[in-house]
């Protein structure tokens, strides 16, 4: 079947098109994404995302905040990767201060990042099942996520917007129970992981809704600026942890997961396999947290020299870039967040056009969009 010819045929036909609005309060859209979809029968002819429902102008607010304060705003962007967002900002400020952070802080940051990745992927896995009409995955995903949230709550004092990273390291030391609880979690989670495959991966109905749907080639994925699991499912190697290692990831032993299908099922498999890799990294570091300071000494008021600083981390959804322009004062002159979801969303139209409207929901679910990160 040639997709392009089919679309051309439909475009030329005289039947009237049908335009429907999905969202911003539709249960399958995850947050306030509004899609204007042009249909002919069930075939998608055009998808236009309407953004801005949750635009808070975080970049403008950053210009009015100090270098310590603006980090906390970023927890509210991709709230499922809050820890990594904070880390990217802290790293950009540390780069400007030419500050080296203690080894202990680096390891704590890695552990927290990978736990966040697990929490994010389990939530995505549950929500994906829900989108496709299965209710059980949601409870299974949340059962494991809940345990991670409890660990965060104990050490960071918050479950979602952790605000645990500060320039120079982390805000306070890990809770005495941290290691014990992570061990308990790992035992449970490793027991639970095969259930994920049993429930969804091998399911025939699930597979037929995912395979060959929403295909994007490696070249297109690069041209659309896709990063993270979306690009890696098309065979594009782009893991920032491997390409531009930061905060000690150069010593972490893990594999970059690559699939070649480029369809929804490949994106699904990349994320599920990434959970195993995150478990590997946590196991490597949980008993090897070095002694010492958890924070380097910094001045109360941070001033960055005149110049530009760019830092990048791998969040659960792809590459987050933080671009700071400094004029030498106490506040950033300009802050730009290159958010992974924003670029991934731009590929949605390419994936969805020519498919059925039911597939659109599957595509959105495997893109794993977090809308506050797009609108900022």
């Amino acid at each position, binding site marked *: 079947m040639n997709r392009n010819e089919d679309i051309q045929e439909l475009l030329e036909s005289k039947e009237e098109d049908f335009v429907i609005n999905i969202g911003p309060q539709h249960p399958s859209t995850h947050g306030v994404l509004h899609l204007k979809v042009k249909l002919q029968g069930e075939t998608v002819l055009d998808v236009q995302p309407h953004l801005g429902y949750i635009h808070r102008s975080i970049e403008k607010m950053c210009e009015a905040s100090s270098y310590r304060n603006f980090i906390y705003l970023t927890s509210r962007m991709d709230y499922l990767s809050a820890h990594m967002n904070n880390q990217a900002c802290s790293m950009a400020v540390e780069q400007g201060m030419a500050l080296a952070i203690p080894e202990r802080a680096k390891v704590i940051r890695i552990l927290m990042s990978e736990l966040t990745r697990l929490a994010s992927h389990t939530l995505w896995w549950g929500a994906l099942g829900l989108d496709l009409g299965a209710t059980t995955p949601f409870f299974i995903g949340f059962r494991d996520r809940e345990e991670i949230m409890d660990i965060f709550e104990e050490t960071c004092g918050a479950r979602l917007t952790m605000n645990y990273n500060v320039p120079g390291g982390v805000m306070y030391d890990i809770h005495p129970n941290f290691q014990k609880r992570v061990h308990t979690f790992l035992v449970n989670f490793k027991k639970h992981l095969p259930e994920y495959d049993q429930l969804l991966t091998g399911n025939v109905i699930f597979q037929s809704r995912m395979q060959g749907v929403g295909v994007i080639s490696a070249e297109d994925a690069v041209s659309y600026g896709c990063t993270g699991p979306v690009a890696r499912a098309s065979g594009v190697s782009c893991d920032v942890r491997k390409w531009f290692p930061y905060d000690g990831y150069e010593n972490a032993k893990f594999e970059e997961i690559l699939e070649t299908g480029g369809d929804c099922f490949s994106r699904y498999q990349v994320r599920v396999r990434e959970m195993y890799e995150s478990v590997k990294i946590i196991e490597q570091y949980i008993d090897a947290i070095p002694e010492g300071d958890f924070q380097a000494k910094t001045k109360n008021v941070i001033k960055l020299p005149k110049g530009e600083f760019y830092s990048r981390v791998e969040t659960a959804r792809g590459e987050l870039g933080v671009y700071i322009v400094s004029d030498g004062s106490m506040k950033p002159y300009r802050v730009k967040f*290159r958010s992974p979801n924003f670029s991934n969303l731009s590929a949605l139209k390419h994936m969805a056009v020519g498919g059925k409207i039911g597939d659109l929901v599957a595509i959105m679910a495997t893109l794993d969009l977090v809308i506050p990160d797009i609108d900022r």
Partner: protein
Amino acid sequence: MTNEELKGFITAHTPEAVFEESQYLNIIVPAEKFRALAKHLREDAGTNCDYLISVSGVDWKDHFTVVYHLQSRKHKHVFVLKAKITDRLNPSVDTVSDIWRTAEFHEREVFDLFGIKFNNHPDLRRLFLDDTWGFPLRKDYVDDVTIVQL
């Protein structure tokens, strides 16, 4: 290529280019020369910048720059290409959305928040805000009610 070789390579194509070094090599070109150089960096086998990471606008009060972070997967290098726009009343620069398709969205964002027009952009509409809003990331946009200066 080393940074020195790159500078030579770029000067040979665009003599007006000005260089700055931060963590990456910064290349500043006038807005009207920008598109040709961007295309050259994308297509030449020696640079091969296939990833457009981000597009950001910066308001320098007397002029604007549009900052493009480019990356090559083959050579593993990152460039920062800046288009300098001196016309503050009617700022514009050529689009690169046909070279990197992700630029379509990124340029709409810059248009929305800075009011910089991208010539030949296929669908230049505001992205987040409605049409009556000002351009909030410009330095002369003041909002005393919702943004409290420390």
